[in-house]
């Protein structure tokens, strides 16, 4: 993992945490931010595609699968209960009483799985920064 990617992931996490609290930001902003974060999360997943292979990583793959499924349901149900983004495109969706609870449920699963993902990946990200710091110190002292 390289430092720019770690920084990208940290920014993505920060944006997600903002989007995960629509009561603080207001729902219209939550919808636009959520759509943007979805695009960035897809980029993150595709960039991490290299990590799909390898042995002894089945638990991580199960977690990533759960994250992906939760994200997909969260985005699809979010679009179906959208009151700003969807109407701005000239559409509205029916089935609010199905998609609304599904959005709340998938958002909770996504948040919980994401916290586990962050806890598992944090040591790797910290190691990247430590390595970089050591390199800078070496260059300064050398």
């Amino acid at each position, binding site marked *: 993992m390289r430092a720019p990617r770690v920084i990208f992931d940290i920014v993505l996490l920060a944006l997600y945490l903002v989007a995960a609290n629509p009561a603080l930001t207001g729902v219209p902003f939550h919808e636009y931010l959520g759509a943007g974060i979805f695009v960035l999360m897809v980029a993150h997943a595709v960039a991490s595609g290299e990590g799909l292979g390898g042995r002894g990583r089945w638990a991580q793959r199960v977690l990533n699968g759960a994250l992906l499924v939760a994200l997909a349901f969260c985005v699809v149900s979010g679009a*179906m209960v959208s009151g700003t983004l969807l109407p701005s495109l000239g559409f509205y969706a029916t089935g609010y009483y199905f998609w609304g609870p599904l959005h709340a449920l998938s958002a909770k699963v996504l948040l*919980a799985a994401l916290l586990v993902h962050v806890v598992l990946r944090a040591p790797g990200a910290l190691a990247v920064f430590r390595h970089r710091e050591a390199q800078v110190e070496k260059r300064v002292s050398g």
Partner: protein
Amino acid sequence: MNLSSKEAKRSRGQRSARKRLLAAAVVGAVLVGALGVGFALAPDSGLHPLTADAACPVAGCTNGACHGYDAVPEPDGRSEMRCPEAGCTSVECHGWETLAGRYHQASDMSLNLWILMPVVLVLGLWVVSRRLSKGERHAGA
């Protein structure tokens, strides 16, 4: 750089590109799958063009004056609301309450905070205890 190491690098690059392509395909498939499962479980739901006479998707009101979450109307004794449970329509239906108090309201703040706050607390305590133990080690040395 000799030829074999160049080839090895190219082969690694191709493998990496293939895996990224596969990851993109998996993401797309899961998204389509979620859409398919959702519409299979709720076949009545769907996307419709937003017109002036379109009924409110949550309360069935065809007032036409609303169509915006910032401008939810007050009960007016004229506009009929559709009950989300029984399906009947009435001017005094509790669809009004749903429209004013639930629809497009962020209802999950407390639950998100219940998850996020303990995490922040645990992380904070971990950082503080790490700093303190580091400080003690330095003082002892």
